[in-house]
């Protein structure tokens, strides 16, 4: 629509301008006193961001959160893919589990937190369990979709040539469901980080979410906002990275579709 914006340099400039506009708006609202006095200005948050960068406590907390999210995510991926391929390829199981899976997937796992804390305490194990429970559903549901979508011709070929179950699982079912699995795994990666931070906010489990709550309670609002900024940045970076990997790994699929 606007020819100048199709040039990357202009686009970058316009994007920076948009960010600057938002920041300016924030600063104006804060200095005008429209928001409660706790909300920090841009300069405070910026300096808090810079000091956080050299703060080992911050990096440690962020690392703990990411490790817990990673562990929960990996458990969810393995369990979700194996269960999903099984359920999706066996009609009977698919029918039997559908209500249970719908229930599980609409269950706000963070509501279970007090129960899980009672059972496991405010530990990293508890955090990993809650993350895995939350991140499981997208992988599971997507894998079931993928496994269900077997083309009739492929299914017939497998039957006619009496392809053994193991080989069928590995070379037919898995690649066929792969694009769906990839989407599920990508979605659950975002959920893992969100939930890991959420768990730390509610419970006393150590990590960046806990730090945000602590800083807020200590009235260090600029640091709290800086940490919030970093968690958003990390989640965003991971989302973009995984999208790139997915595009690259699944090029064969895209070409087939075109």
């Amino acid at each position, binding site marked *: 629509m606007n020819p100048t914006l199709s040039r990357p340099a202009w686009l970058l400039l316009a994007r920076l301008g948009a960010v600057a506009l938002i920041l300016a708006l924030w600063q104006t609202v804060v200095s005008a006193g429209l928001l409660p006095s706790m909300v920090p200005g841009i300069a405070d948050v910026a300096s808090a961001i810079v000091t956080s960068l050299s703060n080992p406590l911050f990096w440690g907390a962020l690392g703990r959160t990411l490790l817990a999210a990673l562990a929960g995510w990996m458990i969810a991926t393995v369990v979700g893919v194996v269960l999903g391929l099984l359920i999706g390829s066996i009609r009977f199981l698919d029918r039997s589990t559908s209500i249970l899976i719908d229930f599980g997937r609409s*269950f706000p796992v963070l509501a279970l937190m007090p*129960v899980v804390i009672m059972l496991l305490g405010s530990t990293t194990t508890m955090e990993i369990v809650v993350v895995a429970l939350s991140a499981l559903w997208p992988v599971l549901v997507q894998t079931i979709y993928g496994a269900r979508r077997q083309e009739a011709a492929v299914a017939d070929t497998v039957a006619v040539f009496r392809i053994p179950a193991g080989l069928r699982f590995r070379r037919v079912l898995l690649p066929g469901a792969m694009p769906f699995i990839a989407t599920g795994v990508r979605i659950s990666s975002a959920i893992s980080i969100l939930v890991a931070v959420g768990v730390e906010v509610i419970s006393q489990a150590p990590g960046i979410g806990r730090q945000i709550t602590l800083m807020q309670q200590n009235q260090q609002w600029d640091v709290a906002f800086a940490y919030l900024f970093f968690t958003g940045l990390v989640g965003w970076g991971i989302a973009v990275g995984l999208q790139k990997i997915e595009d690259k790994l699944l090029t064969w699929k895209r070409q087939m579709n075109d």
Partner: protein
Amino acid sequence: MTSATAPASPGDVGTQANGTTSGTGSQPSRASRRGASGGRASGGRASGGRQAAPRRKKPPTAAGQLLQSTWLIVVVLVLWWVLSARSTNFFIPSLQQILEALGTDLTNGVIAGGALYSLSNLFVGLAIAVVLGVGLGLVLGEVGWLRRVVDPVIHFFRCIPQAALVPLIIGTFGIGQGPKMGTIAFACFWPILLNTIDGVLGVEPTVRHFSKVYRVPKPLYFRRVVLPAALPQIVAGVRVALPIGITVMVVSEMFASTEGLGFYILNSSATFQVPQTWAGALLVGVVGYLLSVLFVFAERRLLRWYYASGAK
């Protein structure tokens, strides 16, 4: 934010939004929706063909289908009942105790008041998110250059953990109902926005040109052309936003609150009323499930024309 050089292709927002919408695992786009239910219709029997399956085996009766889809739930509940009945762990009460606690508090109004408080927060927050998300999404979907400029900002905000916002927003604006609604609205806003943009981008180019050639006035164009065309995608966005909203609702009441379902769960666990804690968590799960079932039901009715148009 200088690293904000996400891919600059025009369909940028759209493709990413597609990923978001599948948050619940369901496929919102027309093509895949067709595909997913197509797979269901074809029987999906790996050993038989599409044609062979019905001949070899009669389709199950309604009762048989009901039995098939419910037996596992019965088994799970019975197992839970039997296994937890012998539990000596203080933190794992028997299912009987949990249900008794649920029954007592449901009838004496403790839960009902909390549920009303929680759900009104949820619905107001969601309504704000729908109005703002759809409004802004329609504009961003139509105005390409603006969409490309703000795309990185949208994705950054979408990635901010909603739960981490709770202490900040409540700490800043107080523990009233308003800040809770605001947090829910903020969390639900992004998936609805991204899906609306995606839906607007999916409007048939021919229809778009047609409206332009006939100089259909802008308000009419938005109301009668873009909005209906984007509606399936918008509804999919709200479906994704609903569980997010429920989660934020519970978290916002666990953080600093004296009311609501989240408070009921947290308070009972803090006072070691273990069956009540389990009952509250179970109830939130059931409420979440019922809301999503109701939503799908409403979606079927609202989008009847869409399913009837062969998009199935």
